């Protein structure tokens, strides 16, 4: 579908008929009747507002007093607008280039597989839906909770594959514990241990469902000559309470895998790991040391990125934009590819160029005009981006995600500052004027032929 239609569709803007004579020799009044509805509507709804906005932007917020350039000065002094401007720059730089680059890669690669058409359909589909729907879709994707948002679910999955997560979040000493906090989330015994002693390191507070699967009922430490033996376990059973305070009860589980360090004069002299029943032992080297449970045992589990928090919200929303518009770039570029002289590519391949060289030296330069049109189109589009930011950025970080179109809406309709809003509108218009001029020039050549 996409590729051949696309090829057939690029026939806009043909030259007008050579002769400027009307076929019917119409009178101007008839022409005026045909044009009237369009010109009246365009005049009232597009041209008049441009003039109005320009004039309005020089008046104060009530519209009574002439304000000179004050509203334009606000563009660069108002914090909200400055954030919006900054974000718009980020948008204009990254969104079109990323979407175009992806579109180019997809267009080139889909030529090499049989099901390229199906792929194009999938990537192009988001163009058909509203930005509101896309916004809701991505609110769901970016949900902070890794159990709900797919982005964080994947991210945490990848993260935990490479970084070990801690086993005992929130564990802490109970009443009259022999342990005390030692900074950095670690706990340390109040006294020192000596060879032949037994030590108990009870903690509480680990939710039953996050206890390690291999944890067994804790066993009290067995004294051994010349060694220090001990048990670390959860001194609490759901439904039964603490039982013997700081003593091992039959129903209590050992902290299987808990890491324990023997510390003498601030240096770790030996480390041990608790077995399934929570028991561990140290050699005589640890004689006179304090036992420490390092903080790495108790870290909160990794919760993924705060996608919609202040620092990531703009990249996150740009991601959703790319999801929507990469298909547009892909289809236009695929149409350009279809019109490319195949012989040129084949000739290069015969001459021994590899695929990368063909892509870099022939495909991309030949596609340059298409790439330019796509990028410029997306830039214009990005300048006006509103819905996605409005929907995806939650209230708490909307200020950080602000863009000009959103700020115009806020200033003009929520904050009742139509003067400043008009200045933003005129500013947006100025930004697209080069493209307007380019369009008109290109068409004038064709119309005039």
């Amino acid at each position, binding site marked *: *579908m996409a*590729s051949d*239609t*696309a090829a*057939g569709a690029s026939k806009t*803007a043909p030259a*007008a008929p050579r002769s*400027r004579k*009307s*076929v*019917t020799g*119409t009178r101007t009044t008839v022409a005026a009747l*045909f*044009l009237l*509805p369009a*010109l009246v509507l*365009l005049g*009232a*709804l*597009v041209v008049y507002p*441009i003039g109005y906005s320009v004039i*309005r932007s020089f008046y104060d917020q009530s519209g009574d007093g002439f304000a000179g350039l004050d509203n334009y000065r606000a563009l660069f002094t108002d914090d909200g607008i400055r954030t919006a401007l900054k974000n718009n720059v980020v948008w204009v730089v990254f969104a079109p280039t990323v979407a175009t680059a992806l579109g180019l890669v997809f267009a080139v*690669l*889909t030529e090499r597989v*049989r099901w*390229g*058409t199906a792929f194009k*359909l999938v990537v192009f*589909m988001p163009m*058909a*839906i*509203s*930005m*509101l*729907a896309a916004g809701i*879709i*991505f*609110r*769901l994707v970016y949900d902070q909770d890794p159990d*709900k948002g797919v982005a964080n*679910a994947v991210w945490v999955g990848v993260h935990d594959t490479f970084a070990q997560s801690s086993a005992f979040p929130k564990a802490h000493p109970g009443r009259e514990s022999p342990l005390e906090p030692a900074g950095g989330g670690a706990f340390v015994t109040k006294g020192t241990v000596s060879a032949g002693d037994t030590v108990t390191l009870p903690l509480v507070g680990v939710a039953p469902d996050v206890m390690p699967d291999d944890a067994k009922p804790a066993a009290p430490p067995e004294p051994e000559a010349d060694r220090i033996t001990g048990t670390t376990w959860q001194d609490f059973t759901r439904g039964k309470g603490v039982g013997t305070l700081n003593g091992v009860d039959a129903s209590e589980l050992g902290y299987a895998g808990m890491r324990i360090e023997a510390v003498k004069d601030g240096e770790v002299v030996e480390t041990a790991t608790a077995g399934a029943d929570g028991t561990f032992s140290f050699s005589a080297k640890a004689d006179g040391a304090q036992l420490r449970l390092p903080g790495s045992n108790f870290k909160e589990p990794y919760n993924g990125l705060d996608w919609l928090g202040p620092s990531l919200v703009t990249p996150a929303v740009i991601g959703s934009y790319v*999801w929507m518009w990469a298909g547009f770039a892909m*289809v236009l570029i695929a*149409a350009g590819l*279809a019109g490319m002289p*195949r012989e040129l590519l084949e000739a290069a391949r015969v001459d021994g160029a590899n*695929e990368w060289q063909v892509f870099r030296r022939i495909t991309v330069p030949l596609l340059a005009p298409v790439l330019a049109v796509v990028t410029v*189109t997306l830039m214009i589009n990005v300048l006006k981006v*509103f819905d996605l930011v409005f*929907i995806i950025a*939650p209230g708490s970080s909307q200020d950080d995600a602000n863009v000009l*179109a959103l700020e*115009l*809406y806020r200033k*003009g309709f929520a904050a009742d500052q139509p003067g400043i809003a008009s200045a933003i509108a005129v500013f947006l*218009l100025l930004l697209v004027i080069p493209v307007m001029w380019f*369009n008109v020039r290109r*068409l*004038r050549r064709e*119309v005039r032929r």
Partner: protein
Amino acid sequence: MSTDAGSVTGAAPPPAPAAEDGRSLGSRIVEWVNGGLVRVFLVVVGLFWLVPTIGLFLASLRAPQDMAADGWWKVFTEPSQLTFGAYETLLENDDITGSLLNTAYITVPSTVLVVVIGSLAGYAFAWMEFPGRDWWFLAVVGLLVVPVQVALIPIAELFGGIGIFGSLTGVVLFHVGFGLPFAVFLLRNFFAEIPRELLEAARLDGAGELRLFVRVVMPLAGPAIAALGIFQFLWVWNDLLVALIFSDAESQPITVALQTQVRQFGNNIDVLAPGAFISMVIPLVVFFAFQRQFVSGVMAGAVK
């Protein structure tokens, strides 16, 4: 052409492998691996593109308490969670059904008016003679890229003045105004390609300007009108910003109705997910049914 035999798989080129004497076994293996990588890459990317939408769909088929507990992918292990409950509740909600109707009431007239008014003007620009014709046309083309934002405040005041602020009429008019430059541009270019002989023949048969337009030009304009119509239809159906400003509680389309729910995102996912999905159904049907026209509309509008 991308899908036909020539470039098939990116593996060793199928045509006449015997003639490929210059190619070593090694380079063929490299190509085969590359082809495999390309496929894996495209499959991963395709999933990347599909998963968000599938997620929304599955989320809409789960009860709110399930959504509060865990992610939509849970349905793969517990398919019994699937329910149409949220859709049933939603379709009994008058606000939502009413706003869906409003979306139709806004979209259909906007599309028809843009096509009709745009055709009349496009025809005049292509085939009639009057002073300054090309300048007028270029002026219209210049308006192609004017951002809608420029018109929000002035038109709000204008509509307030004539009493159509907050009405369906206002929303429709705004969409027609901003749909026209593209419509005139596209149709004028299409009409200009109609063979002159055809029009002259009809003229010799005594057809007047209006008759020529209705009987000769419009029947030929099917493809252009389809492209324009689909494009305008989706544009208006999917609009949020214009309706957000120019409609009120009575006349708001589905996008605005859903937008008011977004502020409490976590709590009303049972409205948002099925609502968003329902609002997507028509555009998706239109998209799949008229891909060809949609693509040509998008391409012609590349600079809008």
